[in-house]
């Protein structure tokens, strides 16, 4: 921005525009600005425009959202599922990151690679794998029945539990890496110091290790939560009738009903909801931590 402002008073410049350093710097960021515009500014503003003009200015699509309970209810369900799956991914991912931080380099690299590879397995494959594991005749129920622990199969699938399992599996890598990288930046001597000063392992964790890893938790949780908001494959495949996601309704509006203005309005509302979460995050943890900066 500074560079852009500097080139404005051309007439007062000594020498031609081309030879001003600020201008040269500006030229260097042009490709990035262009990409930013094409990939973010243009699509998002065209969605916003589509939701507000058809072709005259109208708020009817937003009003329709407000007066049709379905959409806010599904948005609420979407938020619930997103929060729960984020928490669940945290509960599973945090100990993994914690152990990896303390593992020997060979072990650590093996598991980091394994986690990275899991990114490459198709979402559908991972979801169907869970179906095979969790269904009534699936691995878990078969083993439990065989062992005589249960008489009739547990309902592990096509309900919230199934969604949580599937989404947690997908989100854990996304949550492990930010936490792990923040933990790598924490001096392990701090834990020694705490113990030396009289803290038990438990106290050391809660008073030192955990608070210091909060930026990683925040970054990972925000990332996963925002991804979860836009998710619908896993809830569709592993969920029951009540696990409906707003992005599925948006898709129906786009693809089946060609109601693009309303779909745009729904998208804008989802975007706004996401921004609210982002703002809350920023208020308490600071956005710069997302990119690895330290809040001072």
């Amino acid at each position: 921005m500074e560079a852009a402002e500097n080139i404005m008073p051309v007439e007062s410049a000594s020498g031609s525009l081309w030879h001003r350093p600020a201008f040269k710097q500006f030229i260097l960021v042009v490709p990035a600005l262009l990409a930013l515009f094409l990939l973010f500014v243009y699509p998002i503003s065209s969605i916003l425009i589509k939701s507000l003009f058809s072709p005259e200015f109208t708020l009817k699509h937003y009003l329709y959202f407000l007066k049709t309970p379905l959409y806010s209810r599904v948005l609420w369900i979407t938020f619930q599922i997103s929060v729960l799956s984020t928490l669940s991914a945290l509960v599973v991912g945090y100990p993994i990151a914690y152990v990896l931080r303390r593992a020997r380099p060979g072990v650590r690299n093996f598991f980091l690679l394994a986690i990275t590879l899991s990114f490459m397995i198709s979402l559908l494959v991972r979801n169907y794998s869970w179906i095979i594991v969790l269904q009534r005749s699936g691995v878990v129920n078969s083993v439990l029945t065989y062992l005589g622990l249960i008489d009739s199969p547990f309902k592990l699938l096509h309900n919230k539990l199934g969604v949580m399992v599937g989404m947690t599996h997908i989100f854990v890598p996304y949550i492990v890496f930010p936490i792990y990288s923040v933990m790598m930046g924490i001096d392990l001597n701090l834990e020694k110091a705490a113990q030396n000063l009289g803290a038990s392992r438990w106290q050391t964790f809660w008073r030192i290790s955990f608070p210091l890893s909060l930026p990683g938790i925040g970054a990972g949780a925000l990332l996963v939560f925002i991804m979860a908001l836009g998710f619908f494959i896993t809830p569709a495949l592993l969920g029951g009738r009540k696990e409906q996601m707003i992005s599925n309704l948006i898709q129906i509006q786009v693809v089946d009903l060609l109601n693009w203005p309303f779909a745009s309005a729904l998208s804008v509302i989802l975007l706004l909801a996401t921004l609210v979460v982002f703002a809350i995050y920023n208020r308490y943890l600071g956005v710069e931590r997302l990119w690895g900066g330290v809040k001072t």
Partner: protein
Amino acid sequence: MGYQLELINVSKLFGDVRAVDDVSLSIQHGEFLTLLGPSGSGKTTSLNMIAGFEIPDRGEILLENEDITTVAPNDRGIGMVFQNYALFPHLAVSDNIAFPLKMRKTPGHTIQQAVREALELVKLPGFGSRYPHQLSGGQQQRIALARAIVYKPKILLMDEPLGALDKKLRDHMRLEIKHLQESLDITVIYVTHDQEEALTMSDRIAIMNEGKIIQLDTPVALYESPANLFVADFIGESNFLKGQFAETDDVRTAVETAEGLKVWVTKFNQAAPGEAVSVAVRPEKIQILTADVPDANNIANQFNGRIEEIIYVGEARIYRVSLAPEVLVDVKVQSGPSAQNFKVGGDITIGWRIRHGLALT
């Protein structure tokens, strides 16, 4: 008499590496003991075992006659100052200092009082509400010290606590730590690889190398009578003249170098003629012999040489003198007007008394 802390035949292995090899050490209350040695000599591992971060593979550690070899670090009551201070970055200075008290369930008002006193002790009153990253290195060092002593531990361990500071601050903090130790009457075990630091602060120094204690003694004894070549080399500067034992008379023993120089040292009882030996002489113990040096005839070791180099180090000059091809000896002389007479390339006569040459095998 009872020692405050004892290490008895303690060993620690990391894989195949003997980090600490059969170390025994006894420390009295109020003593300032330094573990000095090059990196990898086992001094930090020894410290970690005393703190409880490492469990010895063999041997035991006694604190006031009680076996604490496997006691958890938080139950030992031994304070520690880390090399990089290890202040908790998310806690304000006062919370950092209050941490050990809170862990001990000290009442709130007592904590406040103790924190204030600790801050005054390290000369940083009013810094309580700041955060560690808002402090300079020296200030962080003091806070780390305050945090380590606020709960009045029996023993304070310090792991190269001044390593990250610049020289001037380091010199200053040395004295402050020493004064603090004396006024609090606390036992300190100090780890450093800086011999000057060790010499100025310690009551006793344990020289460590390859996991073993090579020599444990007072700074003066270590400097004046190093037990072997390693210690002589490690503590202070020394000239080493390699040779073999030659004849021995009633009071003295001769060492002859390959170049044919004959050096007299104090009578060495186990000197078998022909056995390899090095003679260590401190540069400041060597004199330049001019006509006006009184008593010059009584100096047994006198050699003619050529000045190869003159190095000015402020308070002194170092003359690098070749006594024979390949035999260079540094002579350290206090700076003074007379020194001006010598030039590089000039001839010179130097000498030292018998008692200043140490035969080390």
